[in-house]
């Protein structure tokens, strides 16, 4: 049972990285997983080269969603927005390193989806219809 939630996840859950708010974010977004009530509010600051300089988030929910966001926030700082845009389900799965059923995978992906929704809004491009609409989360293919 301990394997399922490695110490690594639990540590991020108890002491999330980049928790809080930014004074002057370039963009921000929030999202919920209506299935379980997980919520995240994410703020991102970007420099002139479209490189992420800071990320802060607040939220509440399960260990998986909150820890994944914590791990993700560390990961994307320093990346360009194009690099972030290229990230997908598999990257998140690899980052958190545990096996998840589809329902729990949605928890893990919430952070990335919220960041991407913020990027779309910022860029003025059409965002995916909604949380469930994100193709990577389609049930049929996992």
């Amino acid at each position, binding site marked *: *049972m301990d394997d399922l939630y490695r110490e690594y996840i*639990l540590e991020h859950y108890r002491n999330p990285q980049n928790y809080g708010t930014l004074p002057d974010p370039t963009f921000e977004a929030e999202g919920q997983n209506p299935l*379980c009530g997980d919520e995240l509010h994410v703020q991102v600051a970007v420099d002139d080269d479209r490189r992420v300089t800071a990320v802060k988030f607040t939220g509440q929910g399960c*260990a998986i969603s909150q820890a994944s966001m914590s791990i993700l926030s560390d990961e994307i700082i320093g990346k360009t927005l194009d690099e972030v845009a290229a990230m997908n389900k598999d990257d998140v799965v690899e980052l958190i390193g545990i096996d998840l059923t589809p329902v729990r995978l949605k928890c893990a992906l919430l952070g990335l989806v919220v960041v991407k929704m913020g990027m779309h809004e910022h860029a003025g491009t059409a965002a995916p219809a909604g949380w469930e609409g994100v193709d990577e989360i389609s049930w049929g293919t996992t």
Partner: protein
Amino acid sequence: MTDSASTLPAPTQLDPLRISEDFPILASGPNTGERLAFLDSAASAMKPRQVIDSIVATYEGGYANVHRGVYHHAATATRHFEGAREKVRSFINATTPREVIFTRGTTEAINLVANSWGRTNLGPGDIVVTTELEHHSNLVPWQQVCAATGAELRFIPVDDTGVLVLDDLDALAEGGTLKLVTVVHVSNSLGTHAPLDLIVPWAKSHGALVMVDGAQSVPHRPVDVQALGIDFLAFSAHKLMGPSGVGALWGREELLAAMPPWQFGGEMIRRVEYSGATFNDLPWKFEAGTPAIAEVIGFGAALDYIESIGGIAAIAAHEQAMTAYGYELLAAIPGLHLLGPGPGEDRGGVLSFTMDGTHPHDVATLLDARDVNIRAGHHCTQPLMKRLGVHATARASVYAYTTREDLDRLADGLGEVRRVFGLA
């Protein structure tokens, strides 16, 4: 509960381990090989071999489309199909099988009433009363039909423990015409039992009809539609150990007879011309298209199964014992908060809880590793969750096959969850 209770024969005492032998899926859990401690029957119950065998028997030995075929298998399938309707009638003590409409489940049954009865009988100035406890399936259809017709939807409130507050019922009927009161009989989220003995007379005193969402009552306690004095009852076969894909609407015959059909097509017609159609008698008027043949027959087999293990009263007694036992076990866990009515009250076999420092989804995931299955989330009652100030709960629910050991494993697992999260 009633004065004459002492004169009734004591219900059979269930042996859940004996009963579990009828459920192939319980024998061994997918993660441990141990018995599956399945504590999510409120979402959907497992199926006994008798129900599975019924489906196989239909397809292997008596299948055909029903009602119109002249040949042997068509007659057999029709007889078993309509025989299941009679079993449903008898199970809820309806007066005639014409009052039993097969639907996909509770949700479709409620949508049928909302669309057929609601759209012809509701208008501006009319009031529909429901409760703050409702499952989305008995809430959203009424929101929609009220928005479409101009009727107003009002709510019987709950207190902070999720018990209905009936103190000021009459205020709910003020300033309009009370047409319908629609109530979840037993809450799937909390186990709260709605006091129909108070609500029905009140509704009737205003000339209103009463619809009951029986998804969590019909599978778990005796429900007698005549004794309750209600007008509509909706429930699902999959929650009473029957097949998925089928359920029933019961309605009083004169009401159903006066209601227009909702879906149109084969089966439900009497005479069709290119220019228009006339419709069949009850119950077929409400059953458009090829029905869920093997599922309806399996529904009947599930009711037979309930009878065969001692009947619904015996199941209710067993669940009461299991719920009391589980309640005590959980209440003893530090940081665990049980929601809903207390252990002594009349309640359903649903134990909903939160645990400090953990999220219900993590709790359910960690328990799954031990093959203890519970549900986590809002249980399709988002507004109720918000009203109670929680985002989600963990929920364990019991049934005929639930053992004390299942509940012991739940409690042990919760102890382990606390250790994993550094709480113990």
